[in-house]
């Protein structure tokens, strides 16, 4: 085979690979961590970490990366608790500087898919001039649109500690879907036993996804619903106790009546 023919075949092959790869590989976030929540007590969502409210949760560590890089990330601590119909998440990281406005957004995929288009739901805590606000958003034509504010499902604080760093703390509460609960219209249904990709995004101007500065994606494996230990049925206990007690008395009483009959026979034998 001629050299020129081989070159042409190679060029065509490379072109094919290039063209095909552009179509098959979609844009996606890459999961840096997979976590499983722990069952524990529900923490208070106020942006403050009390002494023991997150103690039962395992502490995970990952990094928020600038743009598409995967090096020199900002370390972030994550804790996750599942309690009743809710999933609770705590995020903490440190920065040397703090701006007038800082936000942390959680983009939620409808599955473990890390494709950008699958992150159809988002929750955001924005701290502006020391005041935090919580927002619910949903994906519409590659833009996240604000829904009505929901109080109580997210809170954050930024505190200066250790004379060097600002500690950023964000607490979220995500309702889990069960037979008793109903999710908001545009929310991802987080059901028991399912796994979802969560993208953690940080920035200063609350405009998603355009103004995301740092981000990372994690997978959360939601646990099956915690089963209550079977309760002792008082009625069954009462019936059992009554049966035992009164059976014992009946036995004694029957024995006593039998003894009386025997006594009567004895008395008759001796002529009474």
């Amino acid at each position: 085979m001629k050299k020129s023919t081989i070159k042409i075949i190679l060029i065509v092959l490379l072109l094919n690979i290039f063209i095909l790869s552009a179509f098959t590989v979609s844009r996606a976030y890459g999961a840096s961590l997979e976590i499983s929540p722990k069952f524990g007590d529900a923490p208070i969502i106020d942006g403050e970490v009390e002494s023991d409210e997150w103690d039962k949760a395992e502490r995970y560590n990952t990094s928020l990366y600038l743009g598409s890089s995967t090096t020199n990330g900002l370390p972030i601590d994550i804790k996750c608790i599942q309690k009743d119909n809710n999933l609770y998440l705590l995020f903490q990281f440190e920065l040397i500087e703090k701006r007038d406005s800082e936000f942390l957004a959680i983009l939620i995929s409808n599955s473990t898919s890390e494709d950008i288009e699958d992150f159809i739901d988002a929750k955001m805590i924005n701290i502006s001039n020391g005041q935090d606000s919580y927002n619910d958003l949903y994906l519409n034509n590659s833009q996240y649109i604000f829904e009505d504010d929901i109080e109580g499902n997210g809170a954050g604080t930024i505190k200066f500690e250790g004379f060097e760093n600002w500690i950023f703390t964000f607490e979220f509460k995500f309702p889990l879907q069960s037979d008793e609960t109903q999710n908001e219209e545009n929310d991802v249904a987080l059901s028991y036993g399912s796994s979802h990709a969560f993208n953690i995004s940080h920035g200063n101007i609350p405009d998603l996804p355009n103004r995301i500065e740092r981000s990372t994606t994690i997978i959360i494996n939601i646990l099956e619903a915690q089963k209550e230990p079977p309760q002792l049925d008082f009625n069954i206990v009462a019936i059992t106790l009554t049966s035992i007690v009164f059976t014992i008395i009946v036995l004694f009483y029957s024995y006593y009546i039998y003894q009386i009959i025997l006594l009567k026979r004895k008395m008759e034998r001796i002529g009474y």
Partner: protein
Amino acid sequence: MSKIKKSEIKNKKKSKENIGYKTVIKTAILSGIFFVASLFFNGQIISLGYFNNSILNIVEILVRTVIILFFFLFLTISYANYRDLVGKPINWKNLMLLFILSIIQSILNIYVFFLTLLGLIFILLYLYLIQE
């Protein structure tokens, strides 16, 4: 002693023991009736609690207590007479057995339990003092 006097004494003894035996039977039957009543009330087969009336609840507690106390009283009289007829007077062990058989009927209700306990202690004290 003449034969007539001996015969009279024997007849009196017979009559006394026949009366004693009849008492054993009668009081045993009465204690049996109260036991059946206790089974209905303390076994919670019949309950006035459905009416959700506090006065009826108090009445029910008192009825339950009184039934157990009568059961204990009649069974004690019956058993004491029985023991008397067989020539072995009733002792504290026998009384304790009757006490336990009575008090365990009230285990499903704490108020009935304490009232019955007080009542049984009162009856035992009364019997003790009378016998002494």
